[in-house]
């Protein structure tokens, strides 16, 4: 026996169906794929032993995302004492440029890097994972009012991020 716990029912189906979406959320949170993979694996490993309970509550993805966000916040808390502003930002690409996709991603990550960790987490949960304010508040262990405040401040910062307004109003197809 290799010491691995037995696989819970439905876990494989969930991973196969949702890992891409979780990884994309992880990428938005961390800014790179290796860290995103690490984050998703950490969350799924934490969810594994509690899988039966989570599925009974009929919201396993919500809890996996909750673990992801809190793990991300813990990592950031341990590693960062403050936000470091971007030194240089990528220039905006022309629409339809052959290299526009990658530049759009760079602009997006640069913009997200301007956000404190909790604002970034709210952006990912609310606007990428499509969670409600109440769900986001529960996932982050804060009030709905705090979620609204984080979202408002995040939007204000993103509004000023170079290139992001253009991406939001048109931009480049993925």
């Amino acid at each position: 026996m290799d010491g691995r716990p037995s696989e819970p029912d439905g876990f494989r189906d969930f991973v196969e169906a949702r890992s891409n979406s979780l990884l994309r959320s992880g990428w938005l949170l961390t800014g790179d794929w290796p860290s995103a993979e690490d984050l998703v694996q950490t969350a799924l490993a934490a969810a594994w032993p509690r899988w039966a309970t989570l599925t009974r509550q009929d919201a396993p993805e919500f809890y996996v995302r909750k673990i992801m966000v809190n793990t991300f916040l813990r990592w950031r808390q341990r590693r960062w004492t403050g936000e470091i502003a971007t030194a240089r930002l990528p220039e905006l690409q022309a629409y339809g440029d052959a290299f526009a996709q990658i530049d759009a991603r760079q602009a997006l990550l640069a913009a997200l890097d301007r956000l404190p960790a909790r604002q970034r987490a709210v952006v990912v949960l609310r606007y990428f994972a499509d969670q409600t304010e109440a769900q986001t508040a529960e996932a982050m262990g804060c009030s709905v009012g705090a979620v609204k405040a984080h979202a408002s401040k995040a939007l204000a910062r993103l509004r000023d991020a170079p290139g992001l307004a253009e991406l939001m109003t048109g931009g480049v197809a993925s």
Partner: protein
Amino acid sequence: MNTEERQLAEMLHRVTPEPPRGVTVEDIAFRLANEAGSRAPRGGHREPRPRRRPARGSRGPSRRGRGGAGRGWAPVLAAASVVVVAGASAGIATALSSHHSPAGSSQDGMPTSSASVSSPPASTTPTSPSTSNGATWPPEQVADGMWGAELINRQTFTQASLVAGNGSLYAFSPGFLDRISPVTGNGLAHVPYNSPIAGFPNRPVLTGNTVWVLSSYAGSSVVLAGYNGSTLASAGTISVPVSGQVASAPEGVLTSGSDGYLYVAAGSAIAVVNPQTRQVIRQIPVSGTVSSVAVAPGGSKVYAGTGAFQLTAYDPATGARLGSSAVSGIGSFGGNLVATPGGVWGTMGIGMSEWVWFAPNGNLSRVVRVSQGPGAGLDSVPSYSGGVVWIGGSQELACVNPATGQKMVAAVIPTDNGIGEYFGNITVAGGRTYALFQNQAAQQSGVATLTPPGGCSG
């Protein structure tokens, strides 16, 4: 949601890329099994593994966080990569150095600019070399490694710093310039050295039996430091005059040509230096601040990368501008230029999305993307060695036709515990092929030898 929020949500879904690979149940099971075995002493919390490379200008102490000294395997998300080199990358330095000795003095009628000779190097503390760092390693097969990968060295070196020449490998380890045996992988000599471009050092450049490195590179100060290729004893310094200010984001600013001269990006000019006389024999004015420089293999052209992004070719003998091309809207960064008979190669983009491009005949209007995705950037700065362009990273290791940009053979780089290993900075020296290797999951790194398939023969 209001309109702005809907636009943000739509943009996030549209721009966020698909992951290069998914997470599997096996990944999780393996992780759980590993954590069960190591949980007790650590309290069960697993820190994220270190990023090999932070996005430039996005996070981390600076865009140059990669490969900084002394980070070792500490799981610091902020710290960039300590990559751990190995092999040697030829790239510009290896491929272009060494054919001829430079002329003993200025030979083309161009006035020599002010240059000074002194020692010791400015940014290096005590220059007394050590004849050996004492480290030896038995060869070890890389588990599941492609192309017969075998570790011959397990030292930590700075990413993208390895070159080969004079029967040796040279690289930066934290706080040192090292000379390594390409046969045994053993450290042969080292001398204290700290790059002035923290975390993103220019590779050492060899001319004759001298190893040249950047000693100072900031503002209006560019100083080169030379070391004896055998003993690493100081061979003096060269102060290079700068036109204006040097680039704030230098990516490959020191190289050599087949004429034996050193070529240095020196603000709005390329300085051509005779390393024997320590004289700056020519300054080629460039429109814009040069962030990267490369010399064509035959020495007929020197390329300057400027801005975001323009590539201009000059005649190194006369300084005449031969042509220029640009790519618009490509982002702010471009560099790590490598010139081959077919054109010019370089990197573009930031962080893990950095990618490698090829411009046939140095014409950016015909630029093609050679690699993309994670690990396709600095982690896999193209190297031109053994008649082949090599591009590695954490996804794929490929040998590429230096004339056409077409991949000839590519191999998937294995993963360990779901984490991609790293093979990069390939160089061919003495009939052997070397790569930098890193396995973050196993906390293993070093110089690996490879046996590429026949299809990689240039």
